């Protein structure tokens, strides 16, 4: 049975409509996974030799220091592990409904889902730390081998405890609050140095080194939790209990104050609701907010990246929302594109509303970014404003235009692939990136080299202002692109 279900899952991955995009996302994911694994190995080496971060540089090698240090930190490690699992580890999703009526026992369905997680990344990652750490300790000769084995087995047991605990966390609403409060309290007690948990942690984990057989109890606990979780899910395999999709209560959002803006407002109202109600769309807003601070990276390392880097950062700080939201116009409407295409609206109104929303977002970002960077000086504010002008006057159109060729449908109801869905890679969407980012940076570079920073900003701002005056012409071109692409876009959105 395992084989059948496994092969089904492989097919599901392999036969998705957008294998290319998914594959790119996978590669991206693997890059990070390997990166963290590598870092873990490094930390394992460093910890075993020096007993802690390099800063604390203990003087004596070959003492019990590294072991004590790690034991002290383990309590925090497991706390973070629980948090990371909750937010990042995706629980195995089997299409359980379709299995309910097959002659596969419910018990087996659940068992498959649970056992599949044994090889989950979060269970393997700690090994990258533990193996080199233990080997080096053992080879130093200062440690009892049996003790180290017991110590490791215990840790492995706790790792799997958090693994199965995560299932409960994800399914019992109250539990997450309790755990959240507990973790917060721990952190607070540590922060105000009321209780130093590391001393307790040190002694507790050391106990398993001293009495290796104690770790058997950890594993008894693992098996108990596993069977508890299994039972919990088996009893939940009814479509009106465990398998029911949770529905959030809806509330009307009345944006009638926008009505004065005419037909454009009709769409903006909907887009605001979209941003509010769809997880996937909300990430565009969050990422826009994140981009506000993007410039800081370059500001604090100006000696590495130079003023060009800073300018690039400023440009991005006001344009974050524009890029994150605008790059997926009209994909946001992919689920009901046929409706949009048969309503009594012209492309111009539709596009204008999207453009307006992007511009409003850019203006708000520019105001916020000016506030953030004002502490650096007036020059930074000039750069932010110049970047905003360019984003409004040029990048708004370019993003919309590229959108005509972006034909990746977006599933608004899922947030799972917020970082996963890649834009359909085609030459046009990549080409459009050049004038969006490279051109203003180059213009700034050459004018600021020949004159000064203020003139550099002014030159970029002028390009933007020029663009604002060219709106009718730009919109005509964009509309044409959208019209010719209409049928293939409709077709692409249909194949989800």
């Amino acid at each position, binding site marked *: 049975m395992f084989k059948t279900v496994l092969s089904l899952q492989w097919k599901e991955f392999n036969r998705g409509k957008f294998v290319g995009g998914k594959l790119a996302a996978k590669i991206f994911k693997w890059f990070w996974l390997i990166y963290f694994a590598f870092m873990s190995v490094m930390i394992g080496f460093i910890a075993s030799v020096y007993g802690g971060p390099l800063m604390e540089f203990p003087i004596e090698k070959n003492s019990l220091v590294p072991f004590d240090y790690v034991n002290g930190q383990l309590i925090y490690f497991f706390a973070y592990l629980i948090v990371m699992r909750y937010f990042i580890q995706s629980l195995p999703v089997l299409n359980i409904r379709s299995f309910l009526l097959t002659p596969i026992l419910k018990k087996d369905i659940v068992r498959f889902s649970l056992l599949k997680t044994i090889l989950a990344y979060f269970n393997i990652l700690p090994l990258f730390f533990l193996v080199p750490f233990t080997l080096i300790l053992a080879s130093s000769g200062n440690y009892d081998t049996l003790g180290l084995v017991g110590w490791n087995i215990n840790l492995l047991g706790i790792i799997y405890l958090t693994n199965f605990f995560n299932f409960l966390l994800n399914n019992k609403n109250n539990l997450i609050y309790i755990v959240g409060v507990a973790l917060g309290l721990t952190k607070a007690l540590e922060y105000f140095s009321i209780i130093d948990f590391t001393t307790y942690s040190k002694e507790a984990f050391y106990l398993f080194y001293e009495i290796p057989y104690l770790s058997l109890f950890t594993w008894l606990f693992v098996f108990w939790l596993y069977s508890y979780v299994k039972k919990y899910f088996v009893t939940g395999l009814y479509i009106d209990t465990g398998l029911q999709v949770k529905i959030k209560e809806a509330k009307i959002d009345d944006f009638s104050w926008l009505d004065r803006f005419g037909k454009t407002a009709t769409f903006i109202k909907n887009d605001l609701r979209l941003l509010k109600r769809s997880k996937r769309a909300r990430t565009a807003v969050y990422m826009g907010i994140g981009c506000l601070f993007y410039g800081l990276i370059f500001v604090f390392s100006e000696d590495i990246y130079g003023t060009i880097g800073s300018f690039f950062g400023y440009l991005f700080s006001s344009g974050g929302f524009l890029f994150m939201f605008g790059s997926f116009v009209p994909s946001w409407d992919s689920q009901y594109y046929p409706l949009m295409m048969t309503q009594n609206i012209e492309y111009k109104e539709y596009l204008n509303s999207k453009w307006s929303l992007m511009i409003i977002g850019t203006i708000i970002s520019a105001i916020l970014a000016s506030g953030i960077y004002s502490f650096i000086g007036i020059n930074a504010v000039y750069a932010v404003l110049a970047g905003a002008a360019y984003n409004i006057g040029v990048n708004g159109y370019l993003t919309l235009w590229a959108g005509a060729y972006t034909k990746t449908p977006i599933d*608004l*109801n899922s947030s799972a692939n917020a970082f996963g869905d890649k834009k359909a890679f085609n030459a046009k969407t990549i080409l459009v990136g050049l004038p969006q980012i490279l051109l203003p940076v180059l213009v700034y570079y050459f004018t600021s080299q020949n004159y000064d920073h203020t003139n550099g900003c002014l030159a970029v701002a002028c390009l933007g202002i020029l663009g604002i005056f060219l709106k009718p012409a730009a919109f005509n071109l964009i509309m044409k692109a959208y019209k010719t692409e209409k049928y293939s876009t409709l077709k692409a959105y249909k194949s989800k």
Partner: protein
Amino acid sequence: MIEIQNLEKKYSSQTVLDINFLKIPAGQTFGLIGNNGAGKTSLFSCLLDLIHPTKGKVINNQVDVSISEDWKSFTTAFLDETFLIGYLMPEEYFYFIGELRGLSKQKVDSFMSQFEDFFNGEILGGKKYLRDLSKGNQKKAGIVAALMGEPKVIILDEPFANLDPTTQIRLKKIIKDLSNYKDTTILISSHDIQDVTEVCERIVLLEKGELIRDINTSEETLKELEEYFKARIN
């Protein structure tokens, strides 16, 4: 009202639609029937300019739909759930569609009030987004939205499927009233011979994209259609 000339749609070598000539006069209730793959949805999609025909054209009230977009002001449709905006509440959806058709909020409200029975208290005033409604209720919302703003042409793909018996009867009455009193041209497709014969004045039978029969509905129509499909089995 609607004129179809030499319409042909091909995907690579497969022809899914091939209609020489079809004219639907204003005010007619027009039914389209045929098995899966007969080309019903393709025909409707061509009428709505959602797919581009390989050959030929569709004229809707003197407007060539693939050239001008003027037909959108008097034509409405509900083909499937892609005509619904999932993250809106039903009320918000109706106001949105209403605004696009130039109806004020009050007008939408008064229009909706005639559908109280039809909605059966399950759509308005609830606390659900459209995406969370049942399939049947989603369909009701979509169909009613297509009736808004006094359109001259209404296109409904399989309107009766997924609806409960009471709602089916109500919908049939609504459609008949629209064609009798408002002179609305209504195009309906269905798999159910009985539904179509009950509602439509004229029935066209498609098979593999071609027009097989063109019948003005009479007492014998149901029998005639039944016999046609029975004969297909052998």
